[in-house]
């Protein structure tokens, strides 16, 4: 809450007409940048904690006890069973210049795509990668996602020569649920290791993860979202 308030306050400051139109003095503009950057980092930190708590709940195999209102929730997150696994969710603030430290340097990484719209969308995802590798993109049903590795113009990589690897991995994220998200598992490999046989779990029904109730259900057939 404190971090959200901080971001709200900074956004309030940046509603000033000089901040919007670019008619503030240079050092004031630079201060606006510092303020919004630090507020975003603070909220990013908070979001990481919230998302990890969400992950912790969703990956628990034990059903949490219901409270007096009937909602399933642990009274104290610290007393909940240990999660099967946890990981951080990080924003890459240099995506606008095709640079991201995680996607360019890790052998395995996950991309989570959050759709803030109230209707389902499909969206082409562009992820900065190291062009000297091949990649596999897989969704949660073990379905390989067609993708393409494409070079970034040298004029763009020149903006951050020490950070941008110069390539982007492009794939289509289909049926992003309204106000919900999907994740993709991406592995980089030398070319000879690709196309190894893998068991496919195509019979697993679509799972829609919705942020506001954070439930994961796959028992019942899912109705397609209405657009």
């Amino acid at each position, binding site marked *: 809450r404190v971090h959200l308030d901080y971001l709200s306050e900074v956004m309030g400051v940046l509603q000033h007409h*000089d901040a*919007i*139109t*670019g*008619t*503030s*003095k*240079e050092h004031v503009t630079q201060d606006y940048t510092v303020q919004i950057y630090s507020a975003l980092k603070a909220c990013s930190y908070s979001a990481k904690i919230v*998302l990890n708590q969400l992950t912790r709940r969703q990956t628990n195999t034990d059903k949490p006890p219901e409270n007096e209102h009937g909602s399933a929730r642990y009274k104290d997150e610290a007393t909940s069973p240990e999660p*099967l*696994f946890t*990981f*951080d*969710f*990080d*924003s*890459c603030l240099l*995506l*606008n*210049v095709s640079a*991201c430290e*995680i*996607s360019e340097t*890790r*052998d*395995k*990484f*996950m*991309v*989570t*795509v*959050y*759709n*803030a*719209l109230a209707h389902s*969308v*499909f*969206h*082409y*995802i562009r*992820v900065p990668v190291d062009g000297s590798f091949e990649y596999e993109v*897989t969704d*949660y049903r*073990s379905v390989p996602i*067609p993708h*393409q590795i*494409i*070079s970034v*113009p040298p*004029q*763009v990589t020149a*903006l951050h020569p020490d950070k941008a690897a110069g390539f982007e991995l*492009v*794939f*289509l*994220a289909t049926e*992003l649920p309204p106000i919900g998200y999907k994740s993709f*598992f991406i*592995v980089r490999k030398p070319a000879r290791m690709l196309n190894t046989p893998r068991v496919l*779990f195509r019979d697993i029904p679509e799972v829609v993860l919705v942020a506001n109730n954070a439930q994961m259900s796959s028992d019942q057939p899912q109705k397609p979202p209405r657009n």
Partner: protein
Amino acid sequence: SNVVSIGNKYFSVGFDSKGFLSSISLEDGSEHKLSQNFFYYEGAVGDNRVFKNRSSGAYIFRPNSTERWVTDHVNVKVIKGPVVEEVHQTFNDWISQVVRIYRDYNYVEFEWLVGSIPVDDGVGKEVVSRFVSDIQSSNVFYTDSNGREMIKRVRDHRETWNLQLQEEIAGNYYPVTTNIAIEDGQRRLAIMNDRAQGGSSLQDGALELMVQRRLLHDDAFGVAEALNQSYPVRGKHFLIFGKLDGSVPSMAARERFLQAEKLLSPWLFFSDVTSFEYEDWR
């Protein structure tokens, strides 16, 4: 020296032998003229003592009526693949662009990179991307109102008084938060942007958006500094072109959905899962 084209099942765009965008072909087989280029206005310079001597600056856009094309030949690199087709254009040392068509999108994406704008010649520059079509727009164009309804604009005209423009370029510029469009009853061309910019239609069939400016003089409206930083800027324009009759979904619907998807585009989060096997993660 070859003419190239990129496209998908909805349409394709062609580039001439000089590397400029030159045409767009729709799925019904019809081909239409459509070109795009960058140019810049030179900023007016004055002592700011009287109105006619006002400099172009942070508050006002005031070109000295000089319009300069940045190049007559574009270096081009063409990339085609199963997901996206791209043409990488290099206009000069400080302007480049990627024209991009994804396999399942029914619009053209222009990702421009402008800067650092050189001012070694002592001239402030206001860089514009201009699209020219053969649409007979009859002095009329449309700009959005803070992302809401489209407002009709008539060149060299105001609704409530007789206008005599002293500055025919700046006087026809309007704020474009998300969308600027022209149409002629049969076809419609809309350019959507990823940030608020100034834009206009200074001749029938043409649309332009200002993407970057670097000026050497203050305009004496209060900031007391020239807009003279050498930042490179990267952004996107989205072009939708189609027929007004029988288009499903309608042009208006296509623009409205694209507007929402770009203003509230998906957020990406990255996680290091190096220590996990896929099956565990799944």
